[in-house]
Every structure is written in structure tokens, then in C-alpha cells.
């Protein structure tokens, strides 16, 4: 029993130490966001990587999410004669919850992994040390542009995901469930409030920052060659996904 407790204690202490290191890393990065030099070219390049190149995967996921949501909502609500609420459920679920969460999970898989792999490879091949020897702060050059771009690009992606997700629900509503197109759009517009969209965009900005932070943190601290980079990539995706779901619960409670 004492052995078991000691083991639990060690795991808990290790968890606290890791959380502390991550918090310090985030604070350090944030402090560099406010101090020159700035690298706008790198921010733009990251915006293209994170935002533009993620559009197909995010758009496709959002479309099918809207489709499935409309079908399942209709299945459930038809049992209580409330089929008319399909448009309401689709638009609120997509804008407040599914748009930001599903888009962020897809971006965590695509971009978080790529960031961890790129920075991790730079770490194990001494490229990060080389930056320091060339009078360039690696935090400002590698971490800050990714954090800034992640925080900006994710809300933009979520706006598009929201539109495509609602459109998916509309397609099912009109062509499969025989809703009148005009009344479906009218209901969607009537039920949707600006704070539904804004709360989703706030979540998206937080998730975008988190994905970039996890990718940079695990990449920056990777060790031990190819295996270390692989581990960093896995940790980046897993920890970003868990953090997205945890933060979603917390933010939903606050923005409810």
C-alpha cells in the first residue's frame, strides 16, 4: 500500500512539474509576443499553413457534421413531434460547439503534429542552437509566429466551418427531410444570435493558441533523434486534443 501511494504521489508530482513547465513556456512565449523584433513574414507563412491549407479537411468535416447532426436530430425529435426544431439544433450545435471543437481537433492532428515534428527536428539537428548563434532568439523566430497565427487563423477557420456545417444541415433538411428551403433558412436566421457565434469564436481562438502551444512545447523539448521527434509529435496531438476538450468544458461553463 505505501508503495502504491508513493507511486501515485510521484506521478502526481511529475504531472505538476510538467504543468508548471508548460505554464512557464506559455508565459515566456507571451512575453516575447509583446517585445520586438517581430517577424510578420513568418506569421503570414504560418497563417497560410494553418488557415488556408486546413480549409479542405475542416470544410469536409464540418459538412458531414452538419449532415449527420440534422439526420440524428430529426430521428430523435420526430419521436416527440418536434421535427421543426432541426434547424435550431443544427445551427446552435454547430456554431456554439461542434464547429470550434471538431475544426480544432482536425487542426490539432494536422498542424499540431507538423509543428512538433518541424521544431523537434530542428532541435535534434542543432538548428535551434544555430539560430541562437546567428543572433536570433529561437522563441521569437519559431514559437511566437506560430502562436499568433494559431490564435488568428482558428477563428477564421471556424467561421467557415460554421457556414459549411449549417449548409450540410440545410442540404439534409431540404433534400431528405422535405423542409421548405425558405423556412429552414428563416428559422436558422431567427434562432441564431450573435453571442452564439462569438462564443464559438472565443473558443476557437483559445483552441488555436493551445494547439500551437502544444506543438511548439513538445517540439522544442524533444530529445533523442527520430524517436524523440516521433514521441513529441504524438504528445503534441494527444495533449492538444485533451486540452481542447477540457477547455471546451470550462469555456462552455463560463460562456453558457
Amino acid at each position: 500500500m505505501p508503495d502504491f501511494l508513493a507511486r501515485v504521489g510521484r506521478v502526481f508530482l511529475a504531472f505538476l512539474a510538467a504543468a508548471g513547465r508548460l505554464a512557464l513556456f506559455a508565459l515566456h512565449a507571451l512575453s516575447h509576443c509583446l517585445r520586438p523584433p517581430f517577424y510578420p513574414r513568418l506569421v503570414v507563412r504560418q497563417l497560410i499553413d494553418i488557415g488556408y491549407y486546413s480549409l479542405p479537411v475542416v470544410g469536409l468535416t464540418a459538412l458531414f457534421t452538419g449532415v449527420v447532426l440534422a439526420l440524428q436530430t430529426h430521428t430523435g425529435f420526430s419521436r416527440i413531434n418536434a421535427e421543426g426544431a432541426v434547424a435550431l439544433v443544427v445551427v446552435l450545435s454547430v456554431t456554439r460547439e461542434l464547429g470550434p471543437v471538431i475544426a480544432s481537433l482536425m487542426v490539432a492532428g494536422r498542424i499540431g503534429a507538423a509543428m512538433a515534428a518541424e521544431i523537434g527536428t530542428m532541435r535534434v539537428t542543432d538548428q535551434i542552437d544555430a539560430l541562437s548563434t546567428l543572433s536570433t532568439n529561437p522563441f521569437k523566430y519559431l514559437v511566437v509566429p506560430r502562436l499568433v497565427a494559431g490564435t488568428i487563423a482558428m477563428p477564421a477557420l471556424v467561421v467557415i466551418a460554421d457556414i459549411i456545417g449549417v449548409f450540410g444541415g440545410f442540404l439534409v433538411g431540404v433534400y431528405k427531410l422535405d423542409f421548405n428551403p425558405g423556412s429552414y433558412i428563416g428559422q436558422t436566421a431567427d434562432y441564431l444570435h450573435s453571442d452564439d457565434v462569438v462564443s464559438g469564436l472565443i473558443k476557437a481562438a483559445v483552441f488555436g493558441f493551445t494547439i500551437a502551444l502544444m506543438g511548439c512545447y513538445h517540439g522544442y523539448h524533444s530529445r533523442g533523434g527520430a524517436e524523440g521527434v516521433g514521441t513529441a509529435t504524438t504528445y503534441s496531438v494527444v495533449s492538444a486534443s485533451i486540452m481542447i476538450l477540457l477547455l471546451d468544458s470550462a469555456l462552455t461553463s463560463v460562456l453558457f
Partner: protein
Amino acid sequence: MAATPKIAVRGLKKSFGPKVVLDGIDLDVGVSESRVVIGGSGTGKSVLVKCIMGLLQPDSGSIKIDGVEAMRLPAREREKLMAKFGMLFQGAALFDSLPVWENVAFGLIQGRGIERHHAKEVAIEKLGAVGLTPDVGELRPSELSGGMQKRVALARAIAAEPEIIIFDEPTTGLDPIMADVINELIVKCVHDLGATAISITHDMASVRKIADRVAMIYKGRIIWSGQKEEMDRSGNAYVDQFIHGRAEGPIRMEVRAL
């Protein structure tokens, strides 16, 4: 009174967990001197130069550059000090995402704020100084052979005309002819710039070509230091074993039985 050394290291200690890597290193490097540190793999050579460069924080001791204590400098002062350094990494450490010319010009563009087109001209000139043609500048590092990557890394190290250049195992992984070409280039570049150089290597041909003075590191300490010409008659059994590459001698390789 003796002149102030360019680099003066005193009592430098660095451990990683229970493993003591540097155990009280003392080392002086004079102005415009080429100092080579020799020693087996895992004896702390790379850790020593990374501590001097400020890439690793030593546990204790002193590192003075031009008489100024470098270990406890504020970040901004440290960055200014780093501008005096150039470094050639063991694996070249070129940036994969940038073309060759931008690798060479990186320190000029990012570190010194020089305009890109002017920095490119300097980069092409430096590539020429290491025997590479301008068209190489447009290639990616992954398109180059190991020897060419080392030359590009050398061009990058000298591009900003640093006062101190550090060479971390510059000939590792190269064939003997290419290794000699790199050694020649190192001698030429250091001479042309009038720079102070610290090289770490276990390639004795390289030592004989580029060193003014040699120091040997073993178990985290400098166990011998002297002129290159004195190396063969040092009277130190460790140095003798190392420079002749003998398996028998006081240095025992830690080989675990299968």
C-alpha cells in the same frame, strides 16, 4: 603583464543529473589563436563549447570573453556578446526550409537587419570563399552532399565576420580528401578574418592542420595543454594513446559485455 586572453575559462563545471560532464575546466585562448580541444567521444568537448557559446548554462565556474564575465550577463547583453561568435556545427545544422544563400545570409538578415538583396550578395561572395558557385545558393540544403553542407555551414559561420569561430568536429563524416579541403578552408578563413578559433575534434589530421595550441580533455578535465609541436613529445600517456589511436593504454573504453 600578459595580454588578456580572448576567452578565459576557469573552474567550469557542468553535470546532467548524476553524470558529471565538465569537472573544473581551465582553458585560455589567445587573440587570433587557433586552439584545438581533443578528446574521445563523450568526454565533454561539445558541452564545453556549448557552455562558452551560452547554449548551455554551466553549474559553476567562470567564462570571460575579452575580460568580461559572460556567465551572468542579462539576456540582451548576452545577445550582443553572441554577435562576436560564429559556429560550425558537427552536423552542419543548416535550415532545411531555406535555400542555401539564405542560410548563409541568415545572421546578416535576422541578426543585423541588413537588406535581403545586399545580404544575398554577401552570401554569394562567402560561398565563393569556400569554393561554391553562385548557383549552389539557390539549392536546398537537402540537395547537397555532406562535404558541400559543411562548406555552406562554414560560409554561414564566417558570413558576419565574427571575432570568434567555433568548429564542432568539422571533419566528422567526411572522406579524407574532403576533410583536408575543409581543414584548408578553416585555416584560410580564420587567417583572413584574423579570428580566434576553438575547434573540437578527434581527427588528428585536422588537429595537425588547424591548431596553434592543443588541449586534451578527459573525464571532464583538461589533462594536457601545449603547442601543437609539443603534442608528440608530451610525455603524457593519455595524450600518447589518443594521438596514436591505441586500444591499449590508460584510457579505457567503457564497453559493456554482451
